[in-house]
C-alpha cells in the first residue's frame, strides 16, 4: 500500500487510518471523505444557518487533524469525531446563546432524497425541522445523534459527557415533546 495514494486507503478501516492520520495526510483525507457528511448533518442540525454550519464543520476537522496524535483507539473514530463536534458546538453555543438552531429547513436539502424523505412534503419537512429547532439544545443534540447516526445511548453519553440515564431522560423528553407537536400538526 502506497502511503501517498488516497485511493489505496479506501478499503482500510477507520482505526488503521486514524493511527496514520497524524503523519499521513492521505489517511486523514480518507477519514475526511467518510465522515464529512455525517458530521456536517449533525452540525447543521444544531446551527442557525449554512455559514455557521460550515464554519463549525471546518473547525471540527481542523481540530481532528491537529489532535490526530491524541486518538487512542479506545472508541470508534466516529465517536471521537462527534465528540469533537459536540465540543465545538458547545463552545460556539456558549458565545451565541440567543442563536436559534435550524429555524428554517436547510436550503441545501438533498434534491434526490431517500424513499422516506420523498414521502413527506416540503411543508411537512418545515414543521418537523421547526419542531426540532424549538427543542432545548441538549435535547436537540441527543435527538440528532440518535436519528442521524443510530448511535446507542452509551455512545451518545460518551460523546456528550453525560450519564446513560441522563441521555435516556433527554431522549424521552425530546420524543414526548416532538410527538405532541407533530400530532398537533397532524403528522402523527
Amino acid at each position: 500500500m502506497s502511503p501517498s495514494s488516497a485511493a489505496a486507503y479506501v478499503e482500510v478501516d477507520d482505526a488503521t487510518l486514524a493511527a496514520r492520520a497524524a503523519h499521513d495526510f492521505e489517511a486523514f483525507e480518507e477519514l475526511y471523505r467518510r465522515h464529512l457528511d455525517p458530521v456536517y448533518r449533525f452540525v447543521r442540525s444544531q446551527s442557525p444557518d449554512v455559514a455557521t454550519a460550515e464554519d463549525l464543520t471546518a473547525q471540527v476537522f481542523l481540530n481532528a487533524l491537529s489532535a490526530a496524535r491524541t486518538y487512542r483507539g479506545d472508541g470508534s473514530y466516529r465517536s471521537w469525531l462527534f465528540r469533537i463536534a459536540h465540543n465545538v458546538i458547545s463552545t460556539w453555543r456558549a458565545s451565541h446563546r440567543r442563536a436559534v438552531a435550524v429555524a428554517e429547513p436547510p436550503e441545501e436539502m438533498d434534491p434526490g432524497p431517500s424513499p422516506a424523505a420523498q414521502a413527506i412534503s416540503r411543508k411537512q419537512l418545515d414543521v418537523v425541522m421547526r419542531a426540532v429547532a424549538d427543542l432545548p439544545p441538549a435535547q436537540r443534540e441527543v435527538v440528532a445523534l440518535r436519528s442521524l447516526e443510530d448511535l446507542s445511548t452509551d455512545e451518545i453519553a460518551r460523546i456528550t459527557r453525560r450519564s446513560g440515564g441522563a441521555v435516556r431522560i433527554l431522549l424521552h423528553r425530546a420524543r414526548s415533546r416532538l410527538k405532541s407537536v407533530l400530532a398537533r400538526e397532524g403528522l402523527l
Partner: protein
Amino acid sequence: MTLDMLLASALRGITARRGFRAELLQALRLAPPVVVVAPPAPRRTTRYIAGGVVAGSVGVAVALKRRAARRTA
C-alpha cells in the same frame, strides 16, 4: 408515519453546499503560510487566501497559520 421516520426524513436529507467539501479539504491540506484577508461584512463566514486556495473562515485560517508557523519553525 412514525416519529423516527419523520426525523430521519428531515435530518438525513441535509447535505453540504456544493464545493464546500473540496474547499475545506484543500484548506486542511495546506502547509504554506496562510494569508488572512478582510472578511466581506456582514457575513460571519469569511474568505481567506490559503496558498492560492480560497475557502473557509477566519477562525480556521488563523489556526492554519499557526500550524504552518509551527511546521516551518
